[in-house]
């Protein structure tokens, strides 16, 4: 199925795979419809000639006040205490206390 702005069901499925999302058979066409509507709205950006415009990733660079990016405000490389390991591991769905446990990764 092709839609006005041109994102097909296969493409939505491909993007869902990239994003590690599983879409049900009901969700897939609805998401395709919504994506096409939103992309149709976004298409108006193409009206603007931006060939001479620098892309802006965040605000500080435009203001010329990005010391962190220039490296000036990077902290000293010293060992400092961080959040307690046991506290972190206590939040894991499955753990042996030292490592996160996940289903088998490699088939043999």
């Amino acid at each position, binding site marked *: 199925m092709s839609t006005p702005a041109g994102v097909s069901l296969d493409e939505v499925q491909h993007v869902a795979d990239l994003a590690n999302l599983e879409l049900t058979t009901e969700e897939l066409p609805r998401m395709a419809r919504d994506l096409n509507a939103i992309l149709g709205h976004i298409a108006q*950006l193409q009206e603007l000639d931006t060939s001479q415009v620098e892309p802006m990733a965040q605000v500080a660079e435009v203001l010329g006040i990005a010391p962190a990016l220039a490296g000036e405000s990077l902290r000293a490389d010293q060992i400092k205490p961080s959040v307690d390991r046991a506290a972190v591991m206590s939040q894991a769905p499955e753990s042996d206390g030292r490592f996160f446990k996940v289903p088998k990764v490699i088939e043999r």
Partner: protein
Amino acid sequence: MPESPNALKSTVNPELEALTLAAARTAVVSGTTTAVALAESYYQRIAAVDPEVRSYLALTQDRALAQAAAVDAAVKAGDNLGPLAGVPIGIKDVLTLKGAPATAASKILKGYHPPYDATAVAKLEAAGAVMLGKLNCDEFAMGSSNENSAYGPVHNPRALERVPGGSSGGSAAAVAAGLCAASLGTDTGGSIRQPAAFCGVVGVLPTYGRVSRYGLIAFASSLDRIGPFTHTVQDAATLLEVLAGPDAMDATTSTQPVASYTADLSKPVAGLRIGVPEEYFGEGLDPEIRAAIETSLDALKVAGCTIHKVSLPHTRYAVPTYYVIATAEASSNLSRFDGVRFGHRSSEANTLANMFRKSRDEGFGAEVKRRILLGTYVLSAGYYDAYYRKAQQVRSLLTRDFLTAFTQVDALVCPVTPTPAFKLGEKTDDPIQMYLEDIYSVAASLAGICGMSVPCGTTQTGLPIGVQVLGKHFDESTMLRVGAAIETARASQ
């Protein structure tokens, strides 16, 4: 003020309904009440009223009462007291409070108890604030109506059948309903200013980099900001003064000096140049909102400000630009939710790949999936230049619009939203209609400037109207002064 058709029915501890932060602190510090008694009366009111509003997702009584007792001990001992001593505050549930649930209103974080405090929360507590609990919001702060919460929508306390706005709907509604003296919310594309306008409270979006984001569950890192909801502009200035400043845990925080926002409020506004951006008064703006903004502008003129028409010519491109950049960043930020380290893990999965997909499918709601898909699409091979890079370039143009305007004026005054609070369910079927709700708020988000919403009137049916004041980067002082002048003029009407 006309009676709203569906205002709150409960009357438990009604003196809290409009209790300001300043008055709460004074009552505790002067010994009129104790911090413990004040916190307990808020919990009584929450128990009675919140079933109508549904603003809280979790209460943190133990921590609140321990902190309140410490404040009371300090009062008794005659110790120095912080600027927020004993003040009961609610926290949007995208901010971490050590040991308390942090769900981001998502099922995927159900049961998660973060092992650390957000910097903003730690700063409030160090200033004496009492954390009452965690407030409802749109899932991962994605939404303009609070209807995307996995735990059910918040109801607007001024009109219960209407939305409180979003995404910080619980934070705005809790202050408006007197369920905390002040609250913290976050704003990525309007999520503080719009709910503040819908609920009739003050909401402040600080300049990007002014308040540390450490401990904020990320949505779009180049846009996310933390800010206060309060009853008055002065209360907002007090909170911002505590929150602002650099933090070693957030490299994007600025070392620019923090102004004395509360002291600066007493400076006169006479002589300030106020810009009125013509693009914010076009088709689709509710006539009652337009009239209320014009009344605010008249009041500023009477106070000695000069009013100037300005143009922000790229305004109409702000919403599409925002929905490319915000979703791209979200798709990347939300990849961390995979069922490995925290939150929900599907019990259905037997392989790692399956576990990622099923955990995410079961954990995320429809709007979050929609935005992850859009963000992944605009970043994917072949589309990056056409969408993501293009949007970053238009972001430069939008920012330049503001920088140019601010060479001519000291602050901008405009609407926050095109309409007052809409009905629950009214816009849930059409994502574009919901996104256009952000039409007057997202440009300031992309440009990183500061902004606020100040109550400036009500519609004939009693719904609150907010006026937006936008200030230069790191010039919260001027913005707050303009907001206070509007507030003062309205009080004397």
